[in-house]
């Protein structure tokens, strides 16, 4: 598939389908995600975007079809290189931002992690905040969650609606942060309903419709 000049894709789905009972959330999706690119995943509510990300993250297994992430048939085997941010914060309500991040940083002993305070500063939060996460505002929680995935500097970054509760200015800053985070070896996948926010870093648009790929092309999601 890959021509002579093209690098091997970081992740690849072939004919992947996912059934929940007899409901098909994804139908024969085939895509290759190349290093150095940023993919924006769009589609209506219930189109299957979150399901696709969870499959790439190794949290769901495809019902049918093949998957390959960093050369592994199981994304789980390459999980130290995958970062996944979901709708839920995936953080402990009882701990402060810094405590949460240092906990997760220590779970990646073999990777060069950011300093927790540094990661929080990057997403625009004050690392000295003594409040437990349960008392953060919605947007602050979202940013902490983004800081968590950036910690281990993953090579495949999966972001499920990262900007949904952020104010426009912060969202702009986050996009800049992601632009700085870009690297020739890294792949970024973002689902969002605010296409114009993701436009500055989008290389490809992947549109899902009722579980099928409706559009997959280079370019900008606002077009």
């Amino acid at each position, binding site marked *: 598939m890959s021509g002579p000049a093209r690098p091997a894709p970081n992740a690849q789905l072939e004919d992947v*389908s996912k*059934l929940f*009972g*007899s*409901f*098909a959330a994804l*139908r*024969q999706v085939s895509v290759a995600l190349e290093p150095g690119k940023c993919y924006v995943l769009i589609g209506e509510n219930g189109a299957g975007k979150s399901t696709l990300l969870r499959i790439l993250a190794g949290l769901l*297994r495809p*019902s*049918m079809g093949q998957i390959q992430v960093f050369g592994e048939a*199981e994304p789980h085997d390459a999980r130290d290189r995958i970062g996944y941010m979901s709708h839920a914060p995936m953080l402990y309500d009882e701990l402060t931002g810094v405590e949460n991040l240092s906990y997760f940083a220590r779970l990646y002993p073999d990777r060069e992690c950011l300093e927790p305070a540094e990661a929080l500063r990057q997403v625009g939060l004050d690392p000295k905040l003594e409040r437990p996460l349960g008392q953060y505002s919605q947007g602050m929680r979202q940013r902490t969650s983004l800081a968590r995935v950036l910690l281990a500097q993953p090579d495949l970054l999966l972001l499920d609606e990262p900007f949904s509760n952020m104010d426009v200015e912060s969202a702009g800053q986050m996009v800049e942060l992601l632009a700085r985070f870009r690297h020739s070896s890294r792949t970024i996948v973002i689902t969002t309903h605010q296409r114009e926010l993701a436009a500055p870093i989008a290389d490809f648009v992947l549109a899902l419709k*009722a579980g*099928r790929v409706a559009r997959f092309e280079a370019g900008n999601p606002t077009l």
Partner: protein
Amino acid sequence: MKKLATGFYAAIVVALMVWGFYQAIYVAPDESTMHEVQRIFYYHVPNAIVCFAFFAVSLLGSIGYLAFRRSNPEWAQRADAWALAGAEVGVVFCTVVLITGPLWGRRAWGIWWTWDARLTTTLVLWLIYASYLLLRRFAAGPQMQTLAAVLGIFGALDVPIVYMSNRWWRTQHPAPVFGGDADSGIKDPAMLAAFGWNVLAWFAWGVLILLLRYQVERKHQKNAALEAREALESHV
């Protein structure tokens, strides 16, 4: 061809069962202290032994599933079918033990049930495999087989405890007949013969059900795969 073989085997099983029944009821000598009730022995103990054997099948199937579930899905599905069939047939035999035991106990001890180690652990064994079957029914979805396999391994850990229970502790339940202390074992050769025939007959009978159950489960698996394919192709 397969049907013919199954029919032939079924005929052998029926003959064995009849022969075993004849041996147990008419040929085996009367036991001196318990008389007629003692004949339950020819059902109680063989059923227990066969039940252990099928839980072992279930254990192997579970291990097989966990071993192959990534590398060879086809084998894994087969192993899973074995695990399920083994557990189901094992539970049936375990149920027979739990019924024949109290029937015997009512005459021998005057009570149906007591909480000694053998009886309690046997009941627990039954409960574990019953919960295994429930897990398979309730936990729909792809992770069900994995979870069931794990539980199947834990369930098998209880089998040796049941087996050893009347060796480790003084129980109201009789001491082991085989492999107990020096003077254990059946002395009367006619009794031993009747016992042996019954073990063989029940075992053959169990294997027959096991095979049938395995085939049904395989059919289920194939149907499920077919349905999934249809769901994908239906509406847009």
